[in-house]
């Protein structure tokens, strides 16, 4: 009988596909929040597997901060084209122009928290009742607390002290008018699982994840890509470095790592020996001890 076991990657895959199918079955207007990072690319890949040979039965939503890596946008457009799925873009610039969101000022200004406004606007406009995302519990201590089916009140808020119990694989997606759910099918995956699976399944990724040369600025120990979105401070200089990214958020806040890893095997080897978390380079998490929890309560991804 001992033959009838599946390895842990297959078990995680199976769990994620089960959850994605539950979302499609339990909700009327689900969407997949596509950031362009490896986790949302993985999620899209799993969604494709879940419904094959049919197409993915929900649109991808991208909240465009206007500060994206150009590689991310190019990759997104190709993927959408290949899968034949609908893409909805929620624009932070538009939210700013409409006066719904206010741009931060100063050298460390970021549009990270402004995404909340555009995201909640998009959810309202398209009457989204479930937004699935590629967040993983191992990323961050507040995320470690999140359910698979995470309930949001009519203001899009998360109440971490009063979450619904979630038992076995019986996901309760029932809700009252105006409320919605955030759902996280790859909750139980670690960074290592993601890379191992990407290798196993041969999933395409943007070139950002692989070692390359880039002009960078080192700020507070974080390596940032030099771009039009960054204002150099005094004493800061631009250096050309050999880097890659472990996560991809906005250009001005996503830290790179110095790395020669230019293929999946080398990346996996690098992750096995690394001593910092992947979000260790995210300036958005460094603002306060509970920065992630605070943003999540308001409706962040």
């Amino acid at each position, binding site marked *: *009988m*001992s033959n*009838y*076991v*599946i*390895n*842990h990657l297959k*078990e*995680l*895959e*199976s*769990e994620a*596909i*089960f959850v994605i*199918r*539950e979302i*499609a*079955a339990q909700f009327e207007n689900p969407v997949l929040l596509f950031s362009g990072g490896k986790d949302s690319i993985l999620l899209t890949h799993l969604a494709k*597997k*879940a*419904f*094959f*040979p*049919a*197409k993915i039965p929900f649109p991808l939503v991208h909240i465009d901060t206007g500060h994206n890596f150009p590689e991310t946008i190019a990759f997104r457009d190709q993927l959408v084209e290949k899968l034949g799925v609908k893409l909805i873009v929620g624009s932070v610039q538009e939210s700013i122009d409409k006066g719904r969101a206010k741009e931060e000022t100063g050298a460390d200004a970021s549009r990270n928290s402004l995404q909340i406004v555009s995201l909640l606007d998009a959810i309202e406009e398209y009457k989204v009742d479930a937004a699935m995302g590629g967040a993983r*519990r*191992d990323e*961050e*201590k*507040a995320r*470690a*607390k999140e359910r698979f089916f995470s309930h949001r009140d009519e203001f899009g808020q998360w109440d*971490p*002290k009063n*979450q*619904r*119990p979630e*038992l*076995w*694989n*019986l996901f*309760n997606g*029932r*809700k*009252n008018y105006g409320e919605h759910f955030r759902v996280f099918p790859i*909750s*139980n995956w*670690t960074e*290592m699982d993601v890379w*191992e699976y990407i290798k*196993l399944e041969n999933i395409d990724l943007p070139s950002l994840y692989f070692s390359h040369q880039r002009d960078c600025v080192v700020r507070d120990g974080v390596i940032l890509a030099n771009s039009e979105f960054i204002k150099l401070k005094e004493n800061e200089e631009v250096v050309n470095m050999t880097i890659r990214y472990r996560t991809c958020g906005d250009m001005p806040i996503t830290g790179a790592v110095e790395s020669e890893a230019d293929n999946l095997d080398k990346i996996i080897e690098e992750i096995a020996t*690394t*001593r*910092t*978390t992947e979000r*260790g380079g995210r300036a958005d998490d460094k603002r306060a*001890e*509970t920065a992630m*929890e*605070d943003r999540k309560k308001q409706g962040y991804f």
Partner: protein
Amino acid sequence: MDYQDIELLRFTTAGSVDDGKSTLIGRLLYDSKSIFQDQLDAVEESSKSKGFDYVDLSLLTDGLKSEREQGITIDVAYRYFATPKRKFIIADTPGHIQYTRNMVTGASTANLAIILIDARKGMLEQTHRHAFIASLLRIPHAIVCINKMDLVDYSEETYNTIVSDFKSFSSKLGIKDIQFIPISALNGDNVVNRSENMDWYQGSTLMYHLETVHISSDHNLVDCRFPIQSVIRPHTLENQDYRGFAGRIDGGVFKPGDKVKSLPSGFVSTIKTIELNGEQISEAFAPMSVTMTLEDEIDNSRGDMIVRENNVPEISQDLEVLVTWMSTKPIQARTKVVIKHTTNESIGMVKELKYKIDINTLHRIEGIDRLEMNDIARMSIRTAKPVFYDAYKKNRQTGSIIIIDEQTNETIGAGMII
């Protein structure tokens, strides 16, 4: 061993408030070198700013603001680590009675429970409650860690007393495999490394147990159960007649060519293909997610179940269940509720409250007229349509239900079908 081929063990912590569950998980992560430098720096920083003279490892899992302020766990934290032997998913659950439902959440998917007991305090009501819940949920393995041995001079006598107390309680529970280990979560004795303070203990460390406990498939491989999640109909020219049934196998082994029966229709057909993403699968078993096609055009939809012709589950509108009650709002007989079972949902009615269980003595209290939050009780439920189920002890998936409040949509009860 190849990382891709290691097994997955899901375990949960259990025990009373402040017994050291989160500290133990922190210690386990720390000593197995699964903590990253930036996480450790952050925890050292906040321990210092709180004025502690040691690093509070519970801060590694107590991630919410209110948890860190109060020094208790409120909701489950999921943590992950891998050794060359296994990959682990940990659910660190709260000990406080008010958050018992979060403990049940973390424990419902576990195949092993670490039950902590503070050596100074021995068994408390919450120890009873959590051990009982672990047995109700049929978690097959338990490791009882007698913690804070550093505070009782590493006394063998104290340890032995607690072990025998636990054994006399657990003899009524029916957990098959129970191990006992004296530890200090704070200092790391017998967690990953052997203790130098307890020569009298000859057993192995917690980590050794976790890496070696025998977890051959805890799934049912005999009774074939495939609840349908949805029907895949591509509506494309090349796949015009394709009808695939999407779902996850909950029991048994399915193969193409097998004669199967659809419930509730009772129609019989033969499995044509089992596939995922177009790849053919020769044998499908729990917990695999697959898409199944049948030889005949059968009108199946979500909530239906595909089983073997000569091995069908119970089919009934009357369920006898053991429940843990999770709502602050008490429930009485004759209350209308929503029942969720596999991929099926039905209106239901709580017909009768039979008895609840005294958590300390495990005696039945009969003649009750309501259930309060955290009660564990037996009730009968009548559903509006037939449910296809197995007893929970036979299959954790097809034997479990959740009870949902019709008005608030909250999950208010977890039920195990008898």
